[in-house]
């Protein structure tokens, strides 16, 4: 016969309902011939049966009816709660974009100037407002460079020939491209440069 200490672990497995089939026959054979182990097995059975819970009664089964539905509802409620931060972020993003688009209309206001400031601004702008695009022909005419060569043949202008004659007389230069003419070319270049940068 198997010794008591060999079957002791099997006694607990048996009471726990976890006895392997291969061990069951060996344990039964031992219990049939050992009163002490039978008493031990009975004590274990009593202990575990006292601590076990009774099977679910009608009230317990009724309370669990529709559990799947309530879990589903709770899941939906949770999903909605989870969706709130995302919705809030979306609304916030749209509001920020709208503010970005609309804000300039409110922030770009007409400057409020005192009458003194207006006067100063007008004074500063006066030369620019008086400035007009010079006519190249007139420029040449004013400088009197080209016209000095044509002074005899051209009678369209009355002031210019006189000026050119004056210039020629005062400078005493015999060359058609004198100092005034160089200044005139530089002024024209400056005008073109100014015009280019303005564009």
């Amino acid at each position, binding site marked *: 016969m198997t010794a008591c200490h060999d079957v002791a672990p099997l006694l607990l497995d048996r009471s726990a309902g976890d006895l392997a089939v291969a061990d069951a026959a060996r344990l039964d054979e031992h219990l049939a011939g050992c009163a002490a182990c039978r008493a031990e097995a009975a004590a274990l059975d009593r202990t575990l049966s006292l601590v076990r819970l*009774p099977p679910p009664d009608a009230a317990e089964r009724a309370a*669990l009816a529709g559990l799947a539905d309530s879990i589903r509802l709770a899941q939906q409620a949770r999903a909605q709660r989870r969706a709130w931060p995302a919705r809030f972020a979306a609304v916030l993003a749209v509001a920020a974009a709208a503010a970005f688009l609309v804000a300039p209309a409110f922030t770009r206001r007409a400057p409020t100037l005192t009458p003194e400031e207006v006067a100063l601004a007008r004074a500063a702008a006066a030369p620019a407002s008086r400035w007009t695009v010079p006519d190249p022909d007139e420029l040449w005419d004013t400088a009197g460079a080209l016209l000095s060569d044509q002074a005899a043949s051209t009678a369209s202008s009355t002031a210019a020939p006189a000026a050119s004659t004056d210039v020629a007389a005062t400078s005493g230069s015999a060359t058609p491209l004198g100092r005034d003419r160089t200044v005139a070319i530089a002024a024209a270049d400056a005008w073109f440069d100014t015009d280019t940068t303005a564009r």
Partner: protein
Amino acid sequence: MTDETGDGRPRLRVVTGGRADAGAAAARDEAALLGAWLVGDDEAFGELVARHEPLVLALVRRYARSPDDARDLAQRTFLKAFESARRALVHRGAAGVPAASGLGAVPFRRWLVRVAVNLGKNFRRDETRWTRSSQALPTLPAGRPDASQRLEDEEASVRLRRAALRLPRRQREVLTLRIDADLPFAEIAAALGCTENAAKVSFHLAVKRLRAELGKEDA
């Protein structure tokens, strides 16, 4: 899927896809049910709950004060396990692993057990419906029908159930997983992250303590 024909040759059986009926849904394995649930199959969800409802109830009712309390605990257990499953499946889907491929399938049942055990840990109360003497007695060994013995057993039962709730955590978990949920020690070990032998030792120690408690009463 292959079946053996009468002459021993394998026969290919084609299983059509689409939404299966209730009978076929019962036959689907857990990974397929979880995959279907993730894409909104309500029937798969119901099947998963129905399949594990008895296990979850068995695990949480020891800690419940009332049937409604047990329902609340069961619902919270399912919610947490489903949430974990959703996260794991979505993560695997993002990693390119099909949910129903069986590759590293989500251990949904094990998660339910773990969640229920953890809820039990947080909800452990000395006063539950099972530690009040008015509750029905468990099934006791035959041959003890007399009233005085019944009263004695009822008092002993209340004491032992209280003692079970006061056991060290691991011993209490192993004991309840074994005697409440009837889980084999191998599954208990997997759920608690210990060896099967360690689970059996914890069970042995728990029973030893309870017997000592019973011995105090008898003495």
